[in-house]
């Protein structure tokens, strides 16, 4: 009942390798089927995201023995030369495999520390494998534990709560002012990459209306069409600034495009309704004096970058707390695993002793001719009772006492001591 993990991620493999080893849903299903059909793994789960491809499994024999076969399989499956794949792959066994998965689910192993998407990806991968019948009791327990870890880390720590990019920090700040953005309107000045990032964030939050203003009408039209917004003509400030709650500016200009008098006029026309301005241009697109107007909030790139840095520090300070949760659940899982193994070991021992008891009694009682059939039956019964007494009590204690299970560290050694290889459960 060991666990093996073979995989690669953003730390060990460049994107050119990662994209070759990623799994589609259909590939994940096929790989799981083949791994079980070939007898490499008994239980299988493929976790594939843009930053990682990992195969978790329960091998029929030792996890260390099955790892090379698993690496070869991955190499063959994706038609990647073993020497290319070999340098990127990592292998984890048992405790380390469990810890790795729990760290992944917690967002501790992500490229962006604490990112939320990974938990959904782990959930999806588990759901898919479970529906395909590729998982069994061990992986079920393992992934349920991982989902619990991910959930706890996100509710009990601040690892994933704060924005980590300038675009998301700006959008989050807008939410500090307006609350939900689903009934809000936005105006985007400029149609470059930065604008696109912010628009994407605003769309994710369900912004009600999006207007795009750019010197090049064509590009403004493209961006507006891409995100379901509408284009407004460059410089039509009085109309453009009347309805939006959020304005994002990222245009290339020597002088500020949004001067104080323009915004002041717009604020008067809109009855001083709150306005959040995100100035992502360098040189700045918005006159700093605009920030002094009533109900106007202006944040430029430096302000937002500073917030991102603060958030990065805050997230990093949450790592020990998240690690504590991971460690707690690793111990919990290993304790469960040991209990299942120990109970299995004791059951196997009982079966073995029962089998040997018959042959032992037969050979020892052969010379005792004076014993009647009733006497022999009586002796056999006493022997059975003694065996039950010897093994039933430890089995029950193992089931009931958590601390005892924790103390027994090496189940494998016990198994080797009491059972020969062919008798291992």
């Amino acid at each position, binding site marked *: 009942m060991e666990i093996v993990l073979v995989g690669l991620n953003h730390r060990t493999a460049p994107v050119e390798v990662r994209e070759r080893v990623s799994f589609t849903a259909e590939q994940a299903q096929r790989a799981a089927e083949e791994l079980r059909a070939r007898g490499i793994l008994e239980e299988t789960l493929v976790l594939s995201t843009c930053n990682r491809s990992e195969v978790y499994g329960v091998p029929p024999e030792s996890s260390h023995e099955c790892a090379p076969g698993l690496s070869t399989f991955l190499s063959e499956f994706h038609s990647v030369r073993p020497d290319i794949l070999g340098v990127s792959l990592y292998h984890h066994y048992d405790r380390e495999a469990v810890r790795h998965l729990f760290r992944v689910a917690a967002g501790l192993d992500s490229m962006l520390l604490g990112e939320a998407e990974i938990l959904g990806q782990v959930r999806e991968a588990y759901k898919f494998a479970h529906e395909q019948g590729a998982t069994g009791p061990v992986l079920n327990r393992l992934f349920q534990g991982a989902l619990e870890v991910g959930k706890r880390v996100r509710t009990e720590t601040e690892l994933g709560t704060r924005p980590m990019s300038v675009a998301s920090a700006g959008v989050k700040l807008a939410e500090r002012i307006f609350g939900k953005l689903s009934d809000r309107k936005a105006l985007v000045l400029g149609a470059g990459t930065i604008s696109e990032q912010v628009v994407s964030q605003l769309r994710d939050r369900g912004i009600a209306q999006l207007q795009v203003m750019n010197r090049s009408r064509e590009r403004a039209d493209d961006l507006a069409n891409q995100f379901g917004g509408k284009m407004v003509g460059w410089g039509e400030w009085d109309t453009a600034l009347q309805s939006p709650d959020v304005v994002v500016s990222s245009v290339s200009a020597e002088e500020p495009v949004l001067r104080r008098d323009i915004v002041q006029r717009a604020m008067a026309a809109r*009855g001083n309704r709150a306005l959040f301005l995100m100035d992502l241009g360098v040189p700045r697109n918005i006159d700093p004096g605009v920030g002094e107007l*009533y109900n106007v909030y202006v944040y430029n790139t430096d302000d937002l970058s500073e917030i991102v840095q603060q958030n990065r520090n805050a997230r990093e300070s949450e790592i020990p707390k998240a690690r504590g949760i991971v460690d707690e659940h690793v111990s919990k899982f290993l304790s469960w695993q040991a209990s299942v193994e120990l109970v299995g070991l004791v059951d196997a021992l009982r079966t073995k002793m029962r089998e040997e008891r018959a042959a032992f009694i037969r050979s020892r009682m052969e010379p005792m001719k004076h014993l009647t059939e009733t006497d022999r039956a009586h002796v056999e019964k006493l022997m059975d009772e003694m065996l039950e007494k010897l093994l039933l009590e430890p089995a029950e204690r193992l089931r009931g006492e958590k601390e005892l299970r924790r103390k027994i560290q090496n189940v494998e050694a016990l198994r080797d001591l009491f059972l020969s290889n062919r008798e291992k459960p």
Partner: protein
Amino acid sequence: MNHLFPILTALAYLLSFGMYVRFLGAGNKLTGRLGTLFLGLGLITHYFALWERSRGLHTVPYHDLYGSMSLFGWLLALTYLGLELYHRQRSVGAFVLPFILVFFLAAHLAPADRLSPPAVHGVIFALHVTLSILAYAAFALSFVLSLIFLGEERLLRSHKVGDVVWRLPPLELLDQMSRSSVLVGLISIAIGTALGFVSVDRLPGQNSFYDPKYVITLLVLALYALYFRLAGSAAWRGARASKLCIFNFAIVVLSFTVVNLYLSHSHRYF
């Protein structure tokens, strides 16, 4: 008098305060939920403490200053809990609980006055007093919310976005919460004042309708109605409305202190 309920109440409110502060500081959702739970427990034990005190003194809770303060604290806690559940927002708890605690402790640590029973009795009078104190509690809550609004707005405008700002409610929500609270206060004070006039009208003999308390109560009602009207408008929504709300509460405090203690003949503690 048995001190079990006051001790349990103080303990529950203190624990609730601790949990809310922890929630605001660390953002742990569980501590926020515990804050609400302890506040709920505090409300229950506070009710029994009020009931026990009234029974012991053979009078209503608002008979003396301390009873009124305790009832005010209880209604403040009740209004806040209602608002928290309605708006699903716990981060304000850390700012409201100190007020509840101060009113509760001040009321229960001080010795009770042994005054003659009030001149007016009956259900209408009881409703008049309870609704008036509820209105003051709701106004106090909107005052706290307005202070938070102004603090958060200042931090956002000066780009000092620290740990707390990420956990405070959005400005828009604070504004809504403040308006909800004022609405509760307005309805309560309007009905409470009307019931007050009815109970005076039912008193035997000639009764004066010219108490300075009536004037200031009507002024409070008008000012909060004005706030409610302006806070909904785009031009006033935000810092201006919050400042008006704070000013209005200063008038409430004036009504509760100077007018009650020195000018009014029939309103001592409510």
